[in-house]
């Protein structure tokens, strides 16, 4: 047993099962802590999107009349907000995730990838809980369950891939530049209005439609509208002008993921000492 291997710490997935099991343990613990000791825990997680939704719904249907002529506008706004909140939660939590886990990173050896992965997992658990309420709302609002609903997991997977890519990049940037946090908060705000959440993508003027749809979030939400709510509404492919063009938002999603992984792997061995 004299197999002396040169080792260096890193983000590497030498044992993917261990990475997943570790990330899951951290994520589940985090998630559970939110509900711990508070009976209303679940209600509180729902309170934020639903309260915000209530205000938005009243303002935009009764005052601004944005929802006019759009089937299930209420369900669309709610679903979009919940999905965007998921993206926002993952990326914003990722910014500080490494500093928040400082005591683990500085004291233990484990693949560093576990940390951002656990952020996504916690957010997915939250999303799952909220989606139950959203689906009930949609059914009450008159949406009939149909096969298109099975496209939802794929859309969530794409959104997760985008979020974790951006998140990993932000997490290592934050170690170097501490003003990433406010910068990203503002960026998230801007992204909220730049994505079809309070309105639908089809009201964007024709000439801007295609560049607009390059935003992966816009594509995901538009496709969600088509598959989840109203099969007669334009899907992402129609809005962007044909299937081949969908490669643009897809390239952005997987490009971010690749960039995030590259940056994270590059920084991983030295994360502990830079914290």
């Amino acid at each position: 047993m004299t197999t002396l291997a040169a080792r260096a710490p890193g983000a590497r997935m030498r044992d993917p099962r261990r990475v997943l099991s570790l990330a899951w343990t951290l994520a589940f613990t985090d998630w559970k802590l939110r509900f711990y000791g508070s009976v209303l825990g679940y209600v509180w997680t729902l309170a934020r999107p639903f309260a915000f939704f209530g205000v938005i719904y009243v303002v935009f249907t009764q005052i601004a009349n944005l929802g006019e002529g759009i089937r299930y506008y209420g369900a669309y706004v709610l679903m979009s907000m919940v999905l965007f909140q998921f993206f926002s939660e993952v990326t914003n939590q990722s910014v500080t995730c490494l500093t928040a886990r400082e005591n683990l990173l500085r004291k233990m050896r484990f693949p560093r990838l576990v940390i951002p992965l656990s952020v996504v997992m916690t957010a997915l658990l939250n999303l799952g809980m909220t989606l139950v309420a959203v689906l009930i709302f949609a059914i009450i609002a008159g949406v009939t369950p149909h096969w298109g609903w099975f496209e939802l997991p794929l859309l969530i997977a794409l959104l997760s891939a985008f979020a974790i890519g951006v998140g990993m990049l932000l997490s290592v940037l934050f170690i170097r530049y501490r003003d990433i946090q406010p910068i990203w908060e503002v960026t998230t705000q801007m992204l909220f209005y730049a994505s079809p959440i309070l309105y639908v993508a089809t009201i964007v003027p024709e000439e801007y439609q295609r560049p607009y749809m390059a935003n992966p979030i816009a594509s995901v939400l538009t496709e969600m509208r088509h598959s989840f709510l109203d099969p007669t509404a334009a899907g992402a492919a129609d809005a962007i002008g044909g299937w081949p063009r969908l490669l643009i938002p897809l390239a952005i999603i997987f490009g971010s993921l690749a960039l995030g992984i590259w940056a994270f792997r590059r920084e991983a061995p030295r994360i502990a000492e830079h914290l």
Partner: protein
Amino acid sequence: MASAGVSERNKRPAKPLLALTRLPVLLDEDRTASRAERLAAAPVAVSVQNVSKTFKLPHQRYSTLKERVLHPFRSRTYDELRAVQDVTLEIRQGEFFGIVGRNGSGKSTLLKCLAGIYEPDSGSIGIAGRLSPFIELGVGLNGELTARENALINAVLLGLTRTQAKERFDDIIAFAELEDFLDLKLKNYSSGMSVRLAFSVAIEVDADVLLVDEVLAVGDAAFQQKCFEQFARLKSEGKTIILVTHDMATVERFCDRAMLLERGEVVSIGEPHAIARAYNELNFGRLLHEAVDESRSGTHRVAEILEAWFESGGERIKALAQGERLGLAMRVRFHEAITDPIFAFTLRNDIGHTVFVTSSMLRELDTGTFEAGEEVTVRVGLEHRFAPSQYKLTPSVARAGGGADALDMREDLASVMLHATKATGGLLDPEHSFEVIRG
């Protein structure tokens, strides 16, 4: 450092070194030359070749993107801290290896390099088998969760699978003696209880090489004893253990070999007894210098205290049993002629209480006339009837009629451990009679 040059081949002597330690000695049967020979023949478990690690300490801690954009070409300045320098080391399988050194000597950095938390700048590290990153107990424990949940999470973090963690759960809890508190949130635990939990988890994780960083300082005596028993078990199972500590008693008791680090460099590697001695010299040598710098009063231009010491039976001592004769002594050189100088001794215990003072003036002693350049030894003898403690001696010299102003006074210049068979709680334990008279 005269005694520091211990060669690596200098294996331990066969005599039991630990007869004096108060804990039962578990390992002595194995502390023989044959064990040393066996270890020398064992395969290498940990190999460290010329490892160096330097930290860059930027002058400005948190740089921002804004600054980076506004001043793209401004170079960032930093200090270099050489935490570990060119350390080479081989640890054999089954060896219990101690790393000692003062604060900031680089021992924890080295351990973190071994654990794979830091990447060395140069050199290579090889570990045979599975490593338990046992760097610090209680990492990853969460106060909001119960002992049950914490044990599982900690075990997974340390490398068990979830199934294994669940299987070993009962053993973990039994060892920590926390059966009655399983569903109590950890924040309601005493610190000793959480340490017990963390230690129990850590030893249940199968590992071939264990890294232990100063963990035995916490926990009560009974639990410490259990930890030592676990170390003994791990040792008998042929595990390799690397222990970082300040406690020389632990080093001498458990380690097969030890290494002394100072300013990131290896001072010596060798037999634990010699390493402990070198460590103590390093430490107390430093304390002595500090005493000279900080707590010397008087000009010492007229009279200079060269040294002070405790003695017994004509020999200088570091420890003494109760009832023995205790001698206090100082050596003084006069740089100017002087008549009837006053010599004084003050004895303080470990919490700074003055327990004994004597001086030539109090004894109404004429000390005589001394010439410039003359040296003198001053001695006081008494019976050791003090409470057990570490005692420090402050010698001083003053001019007759000079009041409180000393020509030279060196605080806490010498120290001695005065033992006693029992601690009565009083400062003194003089010979006394005890009578109960009825009526």
